[in-house]
């Protein structure tokens, strides 16, 4: 690890502006995690307009803090409301809400917050140590290797997410198609523009993300939703744990981190899988000791919450070191980098060491701020749950359309947003996952570039794509990742 730059990054992240943006990010992130209907990917995309004026370091610090913060906040709704604020908190709901009903909401919130902190700190430490090594490998990679990695991301996110492999991959294709629209950068040929001048610039990534997440969700709720008032578990004051809670929590925290981090590094499609794995592991381990599972076991909150945060931190490794997002939120963060014309990847560590290390240091600080914010303020966050959802949806739409407009100061983007929003509605209605689409739009053009570079180098011989051991290994890994769940399902069917 690059210790000199790390200290420099710490110093840079401690400036007043950066601290303010970090604090703002943690507050917004927690808010987003708590409020229903807004996830971290949507929150960051709604805030992408700040990239037009705010300095890159500050903006990226804020986005990183939002990512971590929302993981924190999601646990609050799970525990107090029995409604997971985002998909990574579903497992927390199972035991967390039962603990709250037994009057142990404080302990549940505390183990979630401290567990997230522990996991976040360990995982960020690993990011700091591992990223330069991965970046070192990255510098030695050929275009074909990069292309293989992107295919891996496409394949895993497309095939793992969603109800069927075909639906996931079709969503990815839609994203790739939308990414094709506009002028081809190398030759100036226009693709899918249908002689509409505005389309030659392509579709703005920001508009696309915002309208898919925000407008798609609101239109879906309007057409097919019935909002219902929720039952809340009361909670006031400080979130604290007893001595025995501590004793029972630290093991799950560490195991959760161990599960969450690697699944974040690999494109395994976000935080559903690691939280599920951590929950099942803790449940199995608890059978030997005091088994409270089903009645409010603190282990069932501590493990998944740690896994959740370690997963978010793990996603930073491929994002920073290779420029490769492994989750929807990471993909939106990549879009933010692109807004600044910063290309994450191996060269970033050499070109902009201060930016990278400031970002990493800020994640440490943000993590600490989250702990400070969350233990005493858990009761305050809980009050926010009283805001009726329709008021939120109004705000989401307003923010989304303002964001679309300010990009170019043109109503064209608003009309595009409306059309893409309708597409998002249809995706939700017919069970197509949105994340592969986002990944396709953002990574598609990059993948094409590497693809063409590779073939250019080989004078058009497609064998170059599998010529290096690295690329071959990646394709084998992809085959394994896609095949395992299918084989597992087959094996389970056979046994039952």
């Amino acid at each position, binding site marked *: 690890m690059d210790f000199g730059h790390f200290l420099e990054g710490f110093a840079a992240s401690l400036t007043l502006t950066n601290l303010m943006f970090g604090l703002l990010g943690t507050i917004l992130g927690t808010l987003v995690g708590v409020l229903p209907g807004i996830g971290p990917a949507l929150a960051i995309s709604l805030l992408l307009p700040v990239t*037009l004026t*705010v300095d890159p370091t500050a903006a990226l610090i804020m986005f990183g803090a939002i990512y971590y913060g929302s993981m924190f906040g999601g646990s609050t709704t799970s525990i107090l409301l029995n409604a997971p604020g985002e998909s990574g908190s579903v497992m927390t709901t199972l035991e967390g809400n039962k603990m709250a009903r037994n009057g142990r909401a404080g302990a549940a919130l505390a183990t979630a917050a401290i567990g997230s902190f522990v996991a976040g700190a360990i995982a960020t430490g690993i990011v700091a140590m591992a990223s330069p090594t991965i970046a070192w490998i990255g510098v030695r990679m050929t275009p074909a290797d990069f292309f293989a990695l992107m295919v891996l991301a496409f394949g895993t996110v497309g095939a793992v997410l969603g109800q069927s492999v075909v639906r996931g991959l079709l969503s990815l294709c839609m994203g790739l198609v939308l990414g094709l629209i506009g002028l081809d950068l190398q030759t100036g040929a226009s693709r899918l523009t249908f002689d509409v001048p505005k389309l030659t610039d392509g579709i703005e990534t920001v508009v696309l993300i915002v309208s898919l997440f925000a407008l798609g969700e609101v239109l879906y709720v309007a057409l097919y939703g019935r909002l219902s008032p929720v039952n809340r578990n009361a909670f006031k004051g400080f979130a604290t744990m007893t001595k025995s809670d501590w004793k029972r929590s630290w093991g799950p925290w560490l195991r959760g981190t161990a599960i969450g981090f690697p699944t974040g590094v690999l494109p395994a499609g976000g935080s559903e899988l690691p939280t599920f794995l951590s929950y099942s592991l803790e449940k199995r381990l608890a059978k030997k000791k005091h088994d409270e599972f089903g009645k409010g076991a603190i282990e069932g909150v501590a493990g998944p919450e740690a896994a959740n945060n370690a997963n978010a931190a793990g996603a930073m490794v491929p994002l920073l070191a290779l420029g490769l997002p492994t989750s929807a939120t990471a993909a939106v963060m990549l879009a933010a980098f692109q807004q600044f014309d910063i290309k994450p990847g191996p060269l970033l560590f050499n070109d902009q060491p201060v930016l990278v290390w400031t970002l990493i240091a800020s994640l440490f600080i943000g993590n600490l701020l989250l702990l400070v914010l969350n233990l005493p303020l858990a009761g305050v966050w809980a009050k926010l749950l009283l805001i009726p959802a329709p008021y939120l949806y*109004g*705000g989401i739409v307003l923010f989304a359309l303002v964001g679309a407009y300010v990009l170019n100061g043109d109503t064209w983007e608003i009309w595009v*947003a*409306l059309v893409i929003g309708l597409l998002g509605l249809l995706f939700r*209605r017919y069970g197509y996952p949105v994340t592969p689409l986002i990944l396709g739009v953002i990574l598609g053009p990059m993948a094409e570039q590497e693809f063409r570079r590779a073939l250019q180098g080989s004078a058009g011989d497609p064998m170059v794509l599998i010529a290096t051991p690295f690329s071959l290994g990646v394709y084998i890994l992809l085959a394994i990742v896609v095949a395992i769940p299918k084989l597992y399902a087959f094996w389970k069917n056979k046994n039952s």
Partner: protein
Amino acid sequence: MALASKQIAKGELVFTSFLFATSVVVLVDTSNMVESNAVGFVGPKVFAYIVGGLMFALSALQMIFVLRGAKGEPEGIEAGSPLEKPNWRPFGLVVLALALYAALIEILGFLIMGPVLYFLVGKAIGVKRNVLLAIVAVVVSIAVFIGFTQGLQLYLPLGFDFLQPPSENIEDGGW
């Protein structure tokens, strides 16, 4: 798929056809593209053909699944539950609000269209208290306006340009 119902989901069929049609459009557009000679070994057509072809095959496959009775599970809604039958009235209201906003933002300005948008969306999704909603709509819009124009220095239209006398043409003095 052994227990798939015989009934074919119509909406799903239409949507899959849409995806299929999209892939055809991509393939046709790509084949009509004029490629210059100076593109080297791989021009802009190759990747577009791969994407279009992949989507063509996948949507055809999905079409078969749908005809055999496959049905997508609608996504869950965080603060409520999804309905089986569509609710056209609120949906129409939201679309109307979005279209009105897009059409009138530069004419009437953000300070009028912002609150209108917020109010209509809130109304559509189920707010009962009109006065409170109207107040919140105005307050939120003003906050957003100040945040974006003052905080981020970004431009949002004030509208009513038609009331001002047409400004005299100032000749661009050349660069």
